């Protein structure tokens, strides 16, 4: 069984939900990322989404845009990020790691070369925001053959027919984008999310993670009551921005947010 599937099965048996933090790799410095990943696991993270920076992050709001710029200022490359995952795996063989970003930095390596290197480094899945299932016909079998899950987005605007299609094309989990907008947008509407998640559950079999607009313990708790996983990104990356000159303080600040979310989700 793959790590992501195992993770959701274990959580389900414990009647708990997945806490899924997102940070951009190499932000603000390459050395920060691996220790931060371990600290996030200690603070209660179940799966880590590691952002692969891109020069043109057109689905991201200003917070993640700046994170990309900071990471690219010292040339954080996809290969650097695979090295980080490899280093993380030396002492953590269980926490799933998903690379999240845009297609071009993957495509430039070549699908086969990327998938082999990612699997070898210990990556479990990829989520490419500008790759809908219709355009993934070539890359999907390559990821599959290398044991990598391919995670697709579902949006508030996604039709029922497309939810079915996406549910069949993806593996690992589905990422429900809770609002129309870019990352770091305004707060989500919990009732609306609950009703959409219900719809998705009836049309697709995969676990459902919800992201966009989750900022604090309260919203994390509310979403965890209806979804299988809670994704938190911009709220954490804001701390990296705040402490970019003082990177030693980043883990603590992010850990505090995650611990509070964990506690709220588990009660």
């Amino acid at each position, binding site marked *: 069984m793959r790590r992501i599937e195992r993770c959701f099965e274990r959580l389900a048996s414990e009647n708990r939900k997945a806490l899924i933090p997102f940070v951009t790799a190499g932000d603000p410095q390459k050395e920060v990322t691996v220790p931060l990943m371990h600290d996030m696991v200690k603070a209660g993270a179940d799966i880590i989404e590691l952002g692969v920076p*891109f*020069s*043109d*992050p*057109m*689905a*991201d*709001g*200003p917070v993640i*845009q700046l994170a990309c*710029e900071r990471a*690219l200022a010292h*040339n954080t*490359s*996809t290969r650097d990020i695979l090295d980080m995952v490899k280093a993380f795996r030396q002492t953590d063989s269980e926490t799933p790691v998903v690379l999240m970003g*845009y*297609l*071009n*930095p*993957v*495509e*430039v*390596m070549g699908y086969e070369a990327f998938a082999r290197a990612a699997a070898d480094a210990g990556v479990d899945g990829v989520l490419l*925001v*500008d*790759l*809908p299932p*219709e*355009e993934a016909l070539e890359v999907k079998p390559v990821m599959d053959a290398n044991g990598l899950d391919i995670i*697709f*987005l*579902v*949006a*508030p*605007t*996604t*039709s029922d027919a*497309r939810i079915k299609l*996406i549910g069949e094309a993806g593996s690992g989990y589905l990422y429900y*984008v809770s609002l*129309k*907008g*870019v990352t770091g*947008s305004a707060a989500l509407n919990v009732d609306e999310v609950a009703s959409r998640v219900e719809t998705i559950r009836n049309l697709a079999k995969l676990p459902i993670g919800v992201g966009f607009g989750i900022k604090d313990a309260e919203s994390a708790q509310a979403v965890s009551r209806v979804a299988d996983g809670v994704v938190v990104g911009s709220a954490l990356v804001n701390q990296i921005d705040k402490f970019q000159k003082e990177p030693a303080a980043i883990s603590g600040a992010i850990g505090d947010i995650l611990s509070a979310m964990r506690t709220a989700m588990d009660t």
Partner: protein
Amino acid sequence: MSERPDFSAFPDASGHFGPYGGCFVSETLMGALDELKAMYERLKDDPQFRADFDYDLAHYVGRPSPLYLAERWSKQVGGANIWLKREDLNHTGAHKVNNTIGQALLAKHMGKPRVIAETGAGQHGVATATVAARLGLKCQVYMGAEDVQRQKLNVYRMKLLGAEVIPVTSGSKTLKDAMNEAMRDWVTNVDDTFYIIGTVAGPHPYPQLVRDFQCIIGREAREQSLKQAGKLPDALVACVGGGSNAIGLFHPFLNDDGVAMYGVEAAGDGIDTGRHAAPLSAGRPGVLHGNRTYLMEDDNGQIIETHSVSAGLDYPGVGPEHSWLKDVGRVQYVAADDQEALSAFRELTRVEGIMPALESSHALAYAKKLAATMSPDQNIVVNLSGRGDKDILTVADIDGIEF
């Protein structure tokens, strides 16, 4: 090319031109693109829609635009006759308005009260603000902060037309960043907003519908050539940034085997300096702004900054159909640098009394070289895609003149 494809049959049903094009956007936009595709499929052959479009082109834009034989310049160059397709004479001064008229009609049919656009040189922004004013639509235009500086006149024109110009300060502060920001706006306001993309790039169906609206250029040029020169031209030349004026001229001739075609990219300081905007000449295929196409990128797949004296060509990608036409060998893609373009700008102004846009000057620079290798019984049609009024401050600056 032994087996020539039927060029009129592309893109295919899923929006691809061979390996290029497609629909690489985040899931939130897929519904809106499906809706646009369905609406366009329904309207493109609808007689009333065609009639409305043709009426606006005739009475609002002032079409057909003339095909003008630049006799004095041709004689000076010595070689083929150089004909200019006078898109500079359109209302708002460039070819861009052909497309904004078409897309604004679509916005109206879809009941969207707000339009947004990205702009580089400002021509597409002005053309969008113009049709928005006429139809009473709310209009916001994203423009790179650097371009806002370079194109002050067009910024003010847009404001006078009632549009709000939003300077974009992220990334390289030019056209590509304006397009990122317009996409972010669209994903947030997808219910009430129509995104009027200015070139033949972006996700399907944009490369197709922008091309279809711009094909009026080539259809007219074909008819005018037959009438005025008595035969089809031997060669077509157009500048290529995103490539909308070029595809508009080329497309109606693609199945005419005897017509050679040259797309001219911006070589900036020179291709070998790396400071240019010529993805077809010196880039490689990748994915940006919703489509697979030739791009300027580094070894890690990050998009690199482009350089050109002309803001309208300062873009690291190119329409996907051009990528495919390059690979199948139907169109030759070449480049002209800043100096060559500036010298063509001055030459046409002095010899023919026509001041071309700096974008179009790249096409003129190459046409001059090409004409010299051809004979006086041959004809070249150059797309004079826009007029140069907007570039006067840029050229004055290069000449060291302050007002």
